[in-house]
């Protein structure tokens, strides 16, 4: 492999954003017929590096060669002309158009939809994709949309493909299917780069792995010759423990009882249908489900942010007194100790204010307390210091606007604020969304600490590997219904995957046991 001419040779690449050095003197080789995993923590510069390859950013310094020829990539079009295509985390598709129309969009020449469709079918057949050219995007699942994105770059003749965290939004089954397609493409001689921070995926799919740490290139190795532990250590820079603890539930007592909850969104679409479950104190209740199965609506309903059509949500106090949460204002529910930390895709939209400092963001929760009229920043400043210390937030100071922090650190601020406020019920959604391994483990630890303090933790997660290790019980949502509640200790990933796609998990529930 060392004797081949690399498809892409990046040398001494530097890129700074303001005072942040996103990439420093990075060297990277990408070969054809190989799947390269680009591994690194949040803010280690993986996406930045690949964005420079796909023409979104222009490097401050350094050179890029494609097939041994020095090139200048100053636009995404220039990248595509060189055969480099990138599939971004957020899909760039027009919802009301069909797959074929989206693929054709932006290309020059005459519009011949029939030919386009035929070529798309040919691509699908070649690599094993499953998508209909005439299907509208809004009718598609996340995984199908991703397929369209991949076809889009293949259609434009790309033979160097970059995928930015492609599995973040997929179910285990869909991930398997994607990996199969990627292997087909590799065998066809394409160069593939997959950006990820999930260790098991690196091991499953890649031939070689390159590690970035804090914008610097740490090194690369054959995947076959390395281990998850070794890679993690290189990525983080020190030893990390990779097992998630699951202490036994502490004196579990019913804390939140949801019965027959039915919710419609503003468009009148049924988002939750007759959902019933009980969340206990001293326990982590995991919620699994394909994105958009009603997780958000469920948490928002409990937090009082969502109009409820029917059903009941009861908060049960230590002395057994029940109190109905439906009809209470979000503020009143907050005062009862029910805290919601929902990490949205953009990480800022709910719960944090980007232009405000860490201190002010802490104050968002508590500013109403104390003397009337004027705010007092000394308490929030202490909270901010505590969160920065406990969660190892890397920030220049607590006066820094949170927008200037990297995504992972923003998230620590958001989750940390809810945790330090000593809640009774902690609702958290996607708490580790996009977080690197180190930060994720800090969050798991903190959730476990909360659990041991007797807090009822409801954890909506995306990563099934984590859910089965962390949660005491897992509630699986499918299309707004409770598809099943399984014991975390005995749960099988495949079984949960089935429950996620079919209510009740299909006819043969014991197939995989």
């Amino acid at each position, binding site marked *: 492999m060392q004797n081949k001419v690399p498809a892409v040779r990046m*040398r*001494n690449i530097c890129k*700074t*954003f*303001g*005072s942040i050095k996103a990439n420093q*003197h990075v*060297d990277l080789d990408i070969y054809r017929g190989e799947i390269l995993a680009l591994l690194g923590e949040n803010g280690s510069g993986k996406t930045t590096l690949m964005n420079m390859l796909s023409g979104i950013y*222009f490097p*401050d*310094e*350094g*050179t890029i060669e494609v097939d041994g020829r*020095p090139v*200048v990539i*100053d636009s995404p079009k*220039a990248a595509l002309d060189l055969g480099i295509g990138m599939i971004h985390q957020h899909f760039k598709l027009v919802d009301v158009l069909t797959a074929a129309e989206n693929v054709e969009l932006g290309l020059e020449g005459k519009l011949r939809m029939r030919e386009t469709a035929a070529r798309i079918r040919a691509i699908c057949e070649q690599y094993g994709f499953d998508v209909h050219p005439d299907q509208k995007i809004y009718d598609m699942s996340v995984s199908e949309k991703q397929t369209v994105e991949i076809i889009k770059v293949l259609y434009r003749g790309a033979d160097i493909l970059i995928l930015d965290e492609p599995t973040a939004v997929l179910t285990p089954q869909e991930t398997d299917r994607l990996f199969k397609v990627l292997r087909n493409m590799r065998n066809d001689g394409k160069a593939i780069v997959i950006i990820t921070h999930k260790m098991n995926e690196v091991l499953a799919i890649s031939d070689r792995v390159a590690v970035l740490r804090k914008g610097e290139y740490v090194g690369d190795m054959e995947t076959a010759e390395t281990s998850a532990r070794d890679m993690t250590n290189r990525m983080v820079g020190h030893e990390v423990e990779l097992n998630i603890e699951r202490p036994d539930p502490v004196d579990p007592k019913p804390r939140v009882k949801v019965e027959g909850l039915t919710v419609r969104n503003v468009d009148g679409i049924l988002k939750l249908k007759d959902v019933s479950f009980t969340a206990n104190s001293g326990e982590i209740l995991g919620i699994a489900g394909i994105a958009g199965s009603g997780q958000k609506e469920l948490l928002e309903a409990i*937090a009082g*942010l969502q109009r409820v059509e029917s059903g009941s949500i009861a908060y049960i106090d230590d002395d057994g007194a029940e109190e109905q949460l439906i009809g209470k*204002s*979000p*503020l009143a529910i*907050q005062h009862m100790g029910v805290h*919601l930390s*929902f990490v949205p895709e953009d990480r*800022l*939209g*709910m*719960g*944090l*204010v*980007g*232009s*405000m400092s860490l201190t*002010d963001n802490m*104050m*968002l*929760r508590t*500013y*109403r307390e104390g003397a*009337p*009229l*004027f*705010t007092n920043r000394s308490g929030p400043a202490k909270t901010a210091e505590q969160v920065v210390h406990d969660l190892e937030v890397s920030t220049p100071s607590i006066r820094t606007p949170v927008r200037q922090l990297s995504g992972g650190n923003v998230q620590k601020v958001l989750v940390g604020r809810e945790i330090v406020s000593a809640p009774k019920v902690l609702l958290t959604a996607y708490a580790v969304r996009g977080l690197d391994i180190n930060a994720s483990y800090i969050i798991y630890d903190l959730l476990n600490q909360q659990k041991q303090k007797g807090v009822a933790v409801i954890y909506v997660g995306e990563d099934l590997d984590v859910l089965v290790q962390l949660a005491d019980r897992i509630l699986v949502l499918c299309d707004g219904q409770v598809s099943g509640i399984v014991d975390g200790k005995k749960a099988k990933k495949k079984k949960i995957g089935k429950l996620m796609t079919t209510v009740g998990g299909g006819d043969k529930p014991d197939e995989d046991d």
Partner: protein
Amino acid sequence: MKTTEAKREPLIHISGRPPMRWSYALLWRLGAIVASILFCMLLSWLITGTNPIDFAVTVVHASFPDDPSLFAGRFWPMLHDLAILLMLSLAVTPAFRMRFWNIGAEGQTLAGCLAAGACMKLLTGTIPDAWVLPCEIIAAILAGALWGVIPAIFKAWFGTNETLFTLMMNYIAAQLMAFFCVLWASPKGSGNVGIINQSGAARAVGWFPTKFDIFGATIENDYLINIAIAGVMVILLFFYMVKSKHGFELSVVGESQRTASYLGINVRWVTIRTMILSGGLCGLTGLMLTAGVNHTINSTLAGGNGFTAVMVSWLAKFNPFLMILASFLVVFLRRGAKDLKSNANLNLDESFSDILMGIILFFIIGCEFFIRYRIRFRHRASAQPEKEVTSRA
């Protein structure tokens, strides 16, 4: 070899720079002002042959005359212009912080003028003279607040566009004003209200006092109260915006309504409350114009200050203290430009002052780009020592 052939490399790179130290940024801005004035002088010299020195002297003398006999007639009106512009800039600021683009300060001010004028006209003689002014104060603030809160209510409940709505409210206020000007015209049919309570027993009823005893010395000044109000407002508004819970809430609403509702902030109420404040302050400014200096009503009383205030507020980055500087700058240049055209020696057309004003603002706003971004040229970007690369291999 390994150097990039820069055939297609972009000529210039624009990249963000680390936040600049404020002292450094201030230097940039001052430099921009100086550069804009120099450019204006150069332009006038090239086009009209005006002596640049005469030019500068005229601009400065418009606000700071060297002739002491002109001082009272120029310096105090300049300060008063500044106070009015400053008041309106302060008024629109809370709304702007909430990302509620209130461009209806003009109309809200006229509503205040009209309410104050109506009280002065109709109440004098029917209630004790001493009560007229308090009635004016209440009426003017309420009228301004009403004019501000109507678009806020529509925005809060129906999601209407506040920019268009507040703009349209300006025309309604102006037409309403025109209607009453005809109704109360004196003499009838002139379309002109004239000075209200100018003479007779009711002289100066409902007017702001102009004579003050301060430490035994008697000072007579038409503008002093208005200037003092503006000064106090700067401090009050600073605390409201930076230190108060209300100010905190409205910045959260402006930044992200979703976050605000997640935190249990009542977004509708904050929107309405803030526009009551914003409109109310405009109404107060209307009162200052009618009861303070003009003692009459007409539809040009606000004189476009409501729109200029939008720019001043932005220029000062919503900071009340910086607004003093920004308003001063605008007023100073505006008065200077006006004198340029009235100065017969300079041979400048009246549109020329508008051009100059435009050039100056272009420079001031344009320099913000250089404060935020760095521009680098191609050759500097690709010049990189080779040895650093090899040492890392």
